[in-house]
């Protein structure tokens, strides 16, 4: 990794250049990273520590192994020369246009810059035109919603922009920012391959534009595409890779990349949030919660990614924390899809599904492609027993992102609710294919196979076995495996799984009817096997419990004793238990 100091100076320049071009979110991102770079202890001043406290404490708490902060061997970064700004001929016009732009008067800004040829001016003009078109498109989309969902709202500026930018590129007069814009235009037009090449050109010549990286990421849908990209190795590429890995569900790769980046950007909120996201996908809810608590204490008005935090709170059923979070984001900015989702989650947790649907709808109104809202709304409809609507919502989620295993799972669940178990299997298979390490999915599929209509028990056993191998938290799989085997008349396998289940319950110190069932089965099994000692052990353990099983255990014990003493050769079966 290049030294912290050089990163810092690169970022400082980049932030200025990005905000000169009104690429706000990119400059925001860059600024966050700039502040996220850990200070050298030498220059340690109290005023700089504000952003550092929390995140480092998380790391102390959760770092199980010391991550090598030293750079990976063989990686050397290309020093990309910082772009030099050309002299503006008509700086005054540019300033006027920039202020118009900042007031969101895009057309006006473009008009001011109509005859300017400076690279900065050209970019700002094109970008202003693009944004004007986008804004108009959004408006039209609402104005013109036709029947059958027809909406032919298009960005009317795209054609002329494409023409201009492509000639610029042909003449070699294009700068990285215009390349980025060109990629954006191409992506909207649907020519993805060209868009990819253009964006790669852009990031190779100017790596600090995070917007370009995100656009590139959205065009990398498979690992193969990712590997085919010809990217210069710059430290920004590490950020990109980490993010792409996450998108491609290579969570562990992504986590290790982020850990590595933390070596330089130790205080970056962004990285913390991304780590939380990866941990969330790995279902490490406690860690996620801790990270978000720290993040919120550092950055209390953050709305980004907070819906994920609410999901965690939902899963842990923290009513008050969730309501507090909802209140907080609501006060910060109520018209963000994230805030609507959080409120929807809260109502859902309270069991008020109609209200939560209202909020998910609002989130979707704000952003039609807000994936998790579709899925969550599907869950709500399932709760409300409105399966048709649920199926529809899930399907839309799946169409937005075919890799959303939750929606596939939801589809399966909805169909299973309708008694179409066989039909549901198709969807379960899909979800399991996408997320083979999630035991819940396997269990759901197994239960689907187990339903009265299908009774495909062998397949169910296979699924449960997968689930048991996937760190099944609720320990359903082992128990059901044991039960299925005993149903199918395979006592040895059944005993094996009951024993495993028992061990597990012992280690987790859980008690309950399952424990009793396992003990009873094992006792009977060992008695039938004539291994009376083991049987006795289980029977005596059963004596600790109340209920009919205790009596059964007693009678088994009595039977065994009498067998052992008087009729050692007699078959045990002759004694009624």
């Amino acid at each position, binding site marked *: 990794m290049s030294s912290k100091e050089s990163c810092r100076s690169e970022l400082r320049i980049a932030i200025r250049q990005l905000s000169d071009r009104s690429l706000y979110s990119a400059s925001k991102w860059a600024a966050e990273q700039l502040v996220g770079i850990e200070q050298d202890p030498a220059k340690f001043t109290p005023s700089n520590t504000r952003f550092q406290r929390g995140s480092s404490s998380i790391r102390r708490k959760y770092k199980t192994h010391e991550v090598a902060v030293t750079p990976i061997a063989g990686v050397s970064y290309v020093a990309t020369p910082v772009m030099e700004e050309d002299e503006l001929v008509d700086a005054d016009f540019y300033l006027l246009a920039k202020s118009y732009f900042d007031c969101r008067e895009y057309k006006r800004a473009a008009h001011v810059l109509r005859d300017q040829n400076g690279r900065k001016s050209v970019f700002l003009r094109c970008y202003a035109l693009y944004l004007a078109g986008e804004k108009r498109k959004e408006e039209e989309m609402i104005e013109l919603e036709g029947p059958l*969902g027809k909406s032919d709202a298009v960005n009317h500026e795209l054609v002329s922009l494409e023409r201009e930018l492509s000639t610029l590129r042909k003449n070699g007069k294009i700068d990285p920012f215009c390349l980025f814009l060109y990629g954006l235009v191409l992506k909207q037009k649907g020519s993805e391959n060209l868009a990819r090449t253009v964006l790669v050109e852009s990031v190779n010549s100017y790596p600090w534009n995070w917007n370009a990286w995100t656009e590139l990421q959205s065009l990398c849908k498979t690992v193969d595409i990712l590997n085919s990209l010809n990217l210069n190795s710059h430290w920004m590429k590490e950020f990109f890779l980490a993010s792409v890995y996450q998108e491609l569900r290579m969570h562990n790769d992504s986590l290790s990349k982020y850990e590595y980046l933390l070596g330089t950007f130790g205080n970056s909120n962004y990285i913390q949030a991304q780590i939380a996201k990866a941990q969330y996908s790995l279902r490490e809810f406690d860690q996620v919660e801790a990270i978000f608590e720290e993040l919120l204490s550092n950055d209390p008005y953050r709305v980004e990614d907070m819906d994920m935090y609410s999901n965690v709170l939902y899963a842990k059923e923290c009513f008050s924390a969730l309501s507090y979070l909802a209140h907080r984001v609501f006060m910060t900015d109520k018209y963000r899809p994230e805030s609507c989702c959080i409120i929807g989650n809260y109502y859902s947790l309270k069991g008020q599904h109609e209200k939560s649907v209202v909020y998910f709808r609002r989130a979707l109104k704000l952003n039609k492609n807000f994936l998790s809202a579709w899925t969550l709304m599907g869950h709500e409809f399932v709760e409300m027993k*409105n399966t048709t609507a649920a199926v529809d919502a899930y399907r839309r989620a799946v169409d937005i992102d075919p890799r959303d295993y939750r929606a596939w799972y939801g589809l399966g669940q909805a169909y299973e609710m309708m008694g179409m178990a066989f039909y549901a299997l198709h969807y379960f298979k899909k979800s399991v294919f996408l997320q083979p390490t999630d035991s819940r999915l396997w269990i759901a599929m197994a239960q689907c196979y187990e339903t009265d209509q299908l009774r495909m028990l062998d397949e169910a056993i296979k699924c449960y076995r997968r689930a048991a191998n996937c760190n099944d938290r609720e320990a359903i799989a082992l128990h059901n495996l044991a039960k299925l085997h005993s149903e199918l008349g395979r006592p040895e396998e059944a005993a094996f799984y009951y024993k495993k289940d028992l061990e597990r319950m012992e280690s987790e110190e859980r008690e309950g009817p399952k424990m009793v069932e396992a003990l009873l089965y094992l006792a009977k099994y060992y008695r039938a096997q004539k291994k009376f000692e083991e049987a006795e052990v289980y029977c005596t353990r059963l004596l600790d419990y109340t209920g009919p099983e205790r009596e059964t255990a007693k009678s088994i014990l009595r039977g065994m004793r009498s067998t052992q003493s008087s009729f050692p050769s007699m078959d045990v079966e002759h004694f009624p238990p």
Partner: protein
Amino acid sequence: MGGILKQPGAFTITPHKVSLCILLKIYAPPAQISVPYPFSSVAPHNRLGLFLLALTKSCDDILEPKLDELIHQLRMMSQNWEASWVIDQLMSRLSSLSSPDDLFNFFSDIRGILGGPESGAIEEDQVILDMNSSLGIFLRRSVLAFNLLSFEGVSHLLTNLGIYCKEEFSNCPPYEEHSLDDSSSNLETCSEYENMDLENFVYEKVSEEIEARKEASEVVSFHLHTPNTLLSLVDDVDLPADSVSKQSEKVRVASPYGDPSSNMLRDVDHSGAVFLRTNWQVQGYLQEQADTIEKNGSAVSFNGLEIILRQLQKLAPELHRVHFLSYLNDLSHDDYISALENLHCYFDYSAGTEGFDFIPSVGGNGFGRYEIGLLCLGMMHFHFGHPKLALEVLTEAVRVSQQQSNDTCLAYTLAAISNLLFENGISSTAGTLGSSYSPFTSLGVSHSVQQQLFVLLRGSLKRAESLKLKRLVASNHLAMAKFDLTHVQRPLLSFGPKTSMKLSTCPVNVCKEIRLSSHLISDFSYESSAMTIDGAFSTAWLRNLQKPTGSLVLCPDNGSGNCSNVSQFTAQPTSIPGSVLQVLGSSYILRATAWELYGSAPLSRINALVHATCFADASSSSDAALAYVKLIQHLAVFKGYKEAFSALKIAEEKFLSVSKSQILLLKLQLLHQHALHRGQLKLAQKLCDELGVLASRVTGVDMELKTEASLCHARTLLAANQFREAASVAHSLFCMCYKYNLQVENASVLLLLAEIHKKSGNAVLGLPYALASLSFCLSFNLDLLRASATLTLAELWLSLGSSHATRALNLIHGAFPMILGHGGLELRSRAYIVEAKCYLCDSNFNVFEAYEIVINSLKQASEELQLLEFHELAAEAFYLMAMVYDKLGKLEEREETAASFRKHILALDNPQDEGDPLVSVF
């Protein structure tokens, strides 16, 4: 998503509708006398009116014509200066609409041309639009839609108007849209308008309106089954439909996937933009495509349709039917994975409530109709040859439709299950069906598959009858007939010793069932359907305007013989739906099969001919191919192989891409028989192996093919005099047929066994087989097979010694009427030869007195055998003839026949290919 969906079919005002309003204003300017200014007489004025009527009919969103198209159409309407005046007016008025206020004024002006009920004092000759006429309603709707617009809407309309006009002026294609070229150059239309006089017109206009309204309100099932309509829709050039289809077919066959752009882009342009305008039209188009796929799946170009569908989906994301179409497309091109995806996608979105014409209108239960999805999924698995999966899914469909009390779907599902059982001969369904379908569980007895099938068919038939699903009833009757044809009916619950076992299929039953199914056409009534015929209707509207009405009835038959007028009638929206025709067609095929089995060759041939001529356009390609197969088989049996092969060539060309297997099977069969007859055993063996390869297909096992392959194998072995091997093959084949209850095959295999024993010289062993075969034939009314079994029996008796000659002769004479009336060349000549042999063996027979009888029949036999190139038997006939001549002392004739004998024997010993074109194919 329940609540967010917008109501489809909302009437929105568009630039195109504004132009229509302008045209209406030109058509009926306020306060003008009878014929307004530009029009010199009534006729052109009326023409404009009709044109407008057609345009308003086809106005309903999705895709509307551009201004230049409209102008083009206007020009087509008439070519004199009036039209150009109208166009000029239109353009100038359009371009004068330059501010929102102009629009407001325009729409308040336009109300003036409507006659109101209260404006009593109308002057005599004034042109006024009736408020309630089609045009009037259109105008009122437009005004209303405009008044409902918000200001944003108005400004949008204005912008769009600007674009609409600019496109015409600059004529540059807009971004991301196809340009529309060569739309139509149809000039003949004028004649129709010119010939129309006033009285006629007024009447016509009224009646047309009435008709239109009637059509719109009526619920008509939605089917359009003619490729010709489609072709005439797509191809504006007035080529004879047949040649066009042939041309395009050839192109597609040549490169089904390569370079789709040239051919398909044309398709896209035509159907995607020019003709698909309204909501209903799109639906109609999709329906048509679905029917084409169903009829002739692989002939539809995969990519072409896919492009269109993608375009449609972009235009109308909520029109989920598109997914169904792409499912069908995938299905017909054997793309399992994406078919599965699309099917699931369709049912997820539509919940099965969109566009199925057999659903009675849904009474608003929120559940959706996912059971239809199951039904389709089951059929898909069936199609791809996964009978087990299909059965699972269909069982679930039965359960769910019972839960949802969707009796219609249940009936269809039962029909599908019985079809599945019928086709696949699954040896055991216990466990899958038993648990779910009540009759079995309530009986508590395990039945054979056949019995289950019977119960299913009955159940399905009953349901269909009580639900008045005519088409299903008909096809169920057909299935029953098929069942009767091939299975023994016995009482379902036959306990105890010797309950009366009625072991027979009755031809009367079969015919009754078949007739019941074809009653369909006489009492075909419109089933209630979710979709009306509106789409097809409005598609037909524009066409009908441009076509002289006469041509619809008098279709010039261009000699192909297969393009019948039936299809022309179906082009009319009110005619018989294609699916009905299809069911009817397959009833004819079934009849042909029935007669074939019962042994009446002429009747079988007639039925196949009827199908090939009358239903070729309406039936599915596999049915059509089957009809051809039957005809060719008939030719081979009655006219010899030469004719059959030439006919086969024609059929192969016709069904090149379609249902290859049927034609291929026939070809292999024919070649095999031919080779056997000519003694080319090696070739026969090779062909036999090919058949075996066909039979072991990956996509499920076809029992019919399998039996055919082993039959051929046994025959080949027999011809090679490997009796033991032949007998063992035939024996195992019999076991298989018995296991799967293939009764007809049972009889013929037994007969084959008898033949084998006869040839090996074990007449005594052969006798029981022949007798068993006879009894099978008797109980199944297989008359022709019975005759040939009798013949074999006679041969067996004869080979036991000359003392049995009279008995044999009696047997033959008993079978003669059947053999001569319906038998093929081979059977007949065999009968002649055996008869001659019987006479010759008979000690009472005096050769010198009655040699004529013997010689005549032998001559007949030898002639027919030469046609068949059946060297072995022909040699035998000539040998016998030579012997007779020798006895009689007719030396000259003797030498002649002996020479022929020699020729055939030589040919048999040195089999050679005489450059047979079909053999060289291999």
